[in-house]
């Protein structure tokens, strides 16, 4: 073997001392160091030492109420779900070690897709390894060169990445602005393919899209419509099918994308559709083909959970009650929230700035409450948010306890 092969490339030294490809992260590194120097706990390195239930865990040796998990329906410890997963683990092993289109489709994957078809009342269902990959795969595959994707500016990272991975023209519009969306659709050159991408619930502020109006305008302008229902599945709509069901537009939407990592309580993503040619996606969609399929235990827990969610009316009602109580209680305490009315199971508390937001997050954790700290650039309008996501397993008393914690922490930090 020649020396040339064994010797690593020796790039010329870059200008400036100690500069390399990582230098572009210096500002973020400095921001993080400043924040931690103020003495707050690192909001992005929390470890759950033990998980006691969907709503309780031990963090830093303290029993903590979980109010930032997206575990909306509390399915993670459901006995039937656990049993199904355990059984599948025993019967089918720990993993598939293969792609869905090669050796990675087991009976469980088909059963999971059957459960989804039934849940949504749709003809086709395709299970991906994550929700992120579902958006990435479907959007980048169906919107190609010369096509247009019209999307809300506050769309999730997986939607943006799906746009970036494809070759379509990307046209964003102002958040939830029906007129802005319509204007853009009407300006698209005649004959071009059009995809409108919307979310049922936007996860940062917990607000809902005006789907009834938007879907109609999209269809009137000849666009296909994809709706991401990650944060509404299982909870919103009479059967928990999401905002599309609540808005009465199930039949007009071409594709629904969702995830197993929220209400379903495990991990994975999916797309359901009535499009007659939908099954070809299994061969065309690279994030579906070029990755290993979900482990048998995961699809078994997902299928069991999805079937239970069909009949979870009482849980849905209790979760709404929790959301309304938390929203009303925090408003009464003087906090500024992301929405005037509770619209979903997410209640976003707007912080004056990152420093006070981090201090408040830290104070809540000391009280024994975990919420998500969300900061730019993930947030709209550069806001710092304490994002609370409720669970159907939070008891009425727990919500009162949470409000007490917010009151004490808010006064200690000087926000209320």
């Amino acid at each position, binding site marked *: 073997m020649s020396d040339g092969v064994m010797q690593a490339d020796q790039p010329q030294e870059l200008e400036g001392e100690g500069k390399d490809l990582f230098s572009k992260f210096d500002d973020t590194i400095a921001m993080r160091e400043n924040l931690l120097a103020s003495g707050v706990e690192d909001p992005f390195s929390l470890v759950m030492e033990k998980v006691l239930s969907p709503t309780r865990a031990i963090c830093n040796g303290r029993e903590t109420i979980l109010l930032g998990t997206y575990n909306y329906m509390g399915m993670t410890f459901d006995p039937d779900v656990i049993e199904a997963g355990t059984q599948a683990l025993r019967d089918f092993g720990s993993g598939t070690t293969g792609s869905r289109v090669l050796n990675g489709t087991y009976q469980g994957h088909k059963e999971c897709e059957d459960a989804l078809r039934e849940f949504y009342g749709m003809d086709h269902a395709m299970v991906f390894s994550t929700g992120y990959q579902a958006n990435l795969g479907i959007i980048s595959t169906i919107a190609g060169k010369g096509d*247009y994707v019209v999307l809300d*500016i506050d769309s999730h990272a997986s939607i943006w990445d799906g746009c970036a991975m494809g070759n379509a*023209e*990307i*046209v964003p*519009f102002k958040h939830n602005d029906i007129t802005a969306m319509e204007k*853009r659709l009407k*300006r698209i050159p005649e004959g071009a393919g059009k995809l409108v991408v919307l979310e049922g619930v936007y996860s940062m502020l917990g607000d809902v899209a005006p789907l009834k109006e938007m879907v109609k305008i999209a269809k009137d302008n000849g666009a296909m419509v994809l709706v991401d229902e990650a944060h509404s599945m299982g909870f919103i709509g009479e059967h928990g099918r999401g905002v599309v069901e609540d808005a009465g537009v199930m039949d007009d939407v071409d594709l629904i994308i969702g995830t197993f990592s929220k209400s379903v309580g495990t991990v994975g993503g999916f797309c359901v559709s009535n499009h007659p040619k939908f099954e070809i996606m299994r061969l065309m969609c690279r994030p579906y083909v070029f990755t290993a399929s979900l482990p048998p235990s995961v699809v078994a827990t997902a299928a069991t959970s999805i079937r239970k969610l069909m009949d979870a009316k009482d849980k849905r009602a209790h979760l709404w009650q929790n959301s309304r109580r938390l929203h009303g209680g925090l408003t009464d305490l003087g906090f500024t929230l992301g929405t005037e009315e509770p619209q979903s199971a997410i209640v976003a508390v707007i912080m004056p700035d990152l420093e006070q937001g981090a201090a408040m997050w830290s104070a809540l954790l000391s009280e024994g409450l975990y919420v998500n700290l969300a900061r730019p650039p993930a947030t*709209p*309008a550069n806001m710092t948010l304490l994002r609370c996501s409720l669970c159907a397993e939070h008891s009425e008393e727990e919500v009162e306890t949470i409000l007490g914690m917010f009151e004490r922490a808010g006064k200690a930090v000087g926000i209320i």
Partner: protein
Amino acid sequence: MDRATVEPRIRSIIEPFNKKEVAIADATTFAGDLEFDSLTVMDFVAAIEDEFDIIISMNQQAEIESYGQLVDAVTKMVAE
């Protein structure tokens, strides 16, 4: 519509976005000189699109870094 007609219209649209009152020339950049963040870019682009009834997709925006490039791009789009 030629460049001489397009340019003053863009110049008047940019005014409320030009918070630092930077003197605007063809070489003025949006990210560097005007310090537009992503939200400002969206609002500014929307204002330009509405004024000329055009679409400037994000793919096209990626090619436009300076004021002069924007005027050229819009002039070309309205001519098409």
